[in-house]
């Protein structure tokens, strides 16, 4: 097949101290999981595929928060504001242009561009004003809540061809439609599933490369100590701004996918509850990893769907208990805990566990 050198070089890009999962065994597992994901449509019904597609979209959102918060230390409590901005932009542009261009490519692009610009403005305001820590959290949350308040009162407002619809949201958002004009195809449930799955895998791998590169180290350094990092000659404010806007763009991208998935978006995605959900994924999964938030997002979303089919009033008691127990017993996140236990049992592979990140502390 390919020469082993190339695989090694690829692994060098993907692996490093900054991400979990650097063993050959990990990659076998990874390939296995991906293979299963791709074979899944053969094994199940459209409903399950459809639901899973949305989980994948949420997982991309989880990744974006993992990078900006877990790795860079910017406690963005308003990541769903960007998710929402992406979704709304996609809805507005999509509805307006679908008749004209026949596709949603422009809408996706617009969603990303608008979120990046919006977040860059906010980021400039924050980071060049030396706002840090919890202040960033409250500020971003305030932005999300303000957007929510304003969107709720957009009854009978139209932008382009789209009715913004107040708290009822925008309905009739087009599904993902690739191509243009007469050559466009609207993706069916299965095609959408595959596309989103590919995007998810690509995002994950892409972020791994990023985190193990030059920038990954700087991001970590910023998380650990901004002033120190500045004294090593890095322009911390600029780097934070970049990290903030790029991950916001990723969140906006996932928002666009979500809007296309449900043909619908409403302001609740910018409310307090929605804003805390990604925080919970990242915390429960393991803040300093990518794989943790991924697993947690998938698990918690599917648990909550499953619970709602029980139809009883005990849903939130159970969900609440899951959160409490998870952080009580796995202080560094579920995934790092499992990995550590696993490594203890088997003695690890090529994995570079940062000398017991988890147990040496305190």
């Amino acid at each position: 097949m390919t020469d082993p050198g190339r695989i090694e070089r690829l692994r060098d890009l993907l692996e490093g101290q900054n991400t979990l999962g650097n063993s050959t065994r990990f990659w076998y597992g990874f390939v296995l999981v991906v293979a299963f994901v791709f074979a899944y449509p053969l094994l199940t019904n459209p409903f399950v595929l459809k639901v899973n597609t949305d989980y994948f979209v949420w997982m991309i959102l989880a990744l974006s928060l993992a990078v900006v918060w877990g790795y860079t230390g910017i406690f963005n409590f308003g990541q769903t504001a960007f998710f929402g901005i992406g979704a709304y932009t996609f809805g507005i542009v999509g509805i307006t242009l679908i008749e004209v261009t026949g596709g949603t490519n422009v809408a996706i692009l617009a969603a990303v561009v608008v979120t990046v610009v919006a977040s860059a403005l906010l980021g400039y305001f924050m980071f060049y004003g030396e706002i840090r820590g919890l202040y960033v959290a409250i500020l971003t949350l305030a932005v999300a809540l303000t957007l929510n308040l304003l969107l709720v009162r957009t009854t009978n407002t139209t932008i382009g061809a789209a009715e913004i619809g107040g708290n009822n949201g925008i309905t009739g958002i087009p599904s993902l439609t690739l191509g243009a004009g007469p050559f466009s195809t609207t993706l069916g449930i299965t095609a959408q599933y595959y596309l989103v799955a590919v995007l998810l895998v690509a995002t994950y791998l892409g972020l791994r490369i990023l985190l193990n590169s030059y920038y990954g180290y700087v991001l970590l350094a910023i998380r650990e100590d901004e002033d120190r990092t500045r004294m090593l000659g890095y322009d911390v404010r600029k780097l934070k701004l970049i990290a903030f806007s790029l991950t916001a763009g990723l969140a906006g991208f996932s928002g666009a996918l979500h809007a296309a998935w449900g043909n619908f978006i409403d302001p609740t995605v910018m409310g307090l509850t929605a804003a805390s959900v990604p925080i919970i994924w990242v915390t429960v999964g393991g803040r300093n990893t990518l794989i943790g938030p991924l697993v947690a997002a998938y698990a918690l979303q599917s648990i909550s769907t499953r619970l709602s089919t029980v139809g009883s009033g005990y849903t939130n008691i159970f969900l609440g208990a899951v959160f409490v127990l998870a952080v009580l017993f796995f202080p560094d996140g579920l995934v790092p805990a499992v990995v550590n236990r696993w490594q203890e049992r088997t003695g690890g592979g090529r994995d570079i566990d940062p000398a017991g990140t988890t147990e040496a502390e305190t």
Partner: protein
Amino acid sequence: MLELDEVNAGYGRTPVLHDISMEIREGEVVSLIGRNGAGKSTLMKTIIGLLTPTSGDLLFKGESIVDDPAERRARRGIGYVPQDKEIFPRLTVHENLKVGRFVNEANDRSLFEEMYDYFPILDERRNQKAGTMSGGEQQMLAIARALVGAPDLLLLDEPSEGVQPTIIEEISDIVGEINRDMGTTVFFVEQNLDFTINTTERCYVIDTGELVNELPPDELRGSEVVQQHITV
């Protein structure tokens, strides 16, 4: 006053101290030397109770204190000045001293003024936030804070670090004084040989987590033991 019996301790699963046994008698001034990472600070933390030994026993005034948490050991009469000073940055100088007195509220002899006499700079800056004091000023504050509690045993982790030479001499004098006047037993870690020689009666040498020797201070300089365990 203090007895250690085969104490083992470490961080997480990393053992640092191996079978440490030693004794400090009432009224003594004892020091501990060893190179970086030998385990000196770890030993201090184990005595005050910030680390729990994996095995072994600690006796203070004849009673076992291994199961006591740090705060109880402090209330039994152990004072501690850590290596990183660890002053409370957002409390004022005076408030820092007040915190140091909770251990011994029963003792009505207030030592505040004495401390202010020892360290006039603290007197001048009573209401400055401790975090904005200079490195050396913080060190003085940390020592004063431990002393206002009138401990029976004082643990000092590198008290001369970052302190100007004249004040090192003063600290050395103060240690002598409290030992003489208040009968305080002192156990300290120090790299500054002059300080050690001037101040102590006995000196333990630690290497790689093991106590390897015990010397009278005047043998320190040029001693072979020191050559072997301190210099590389």
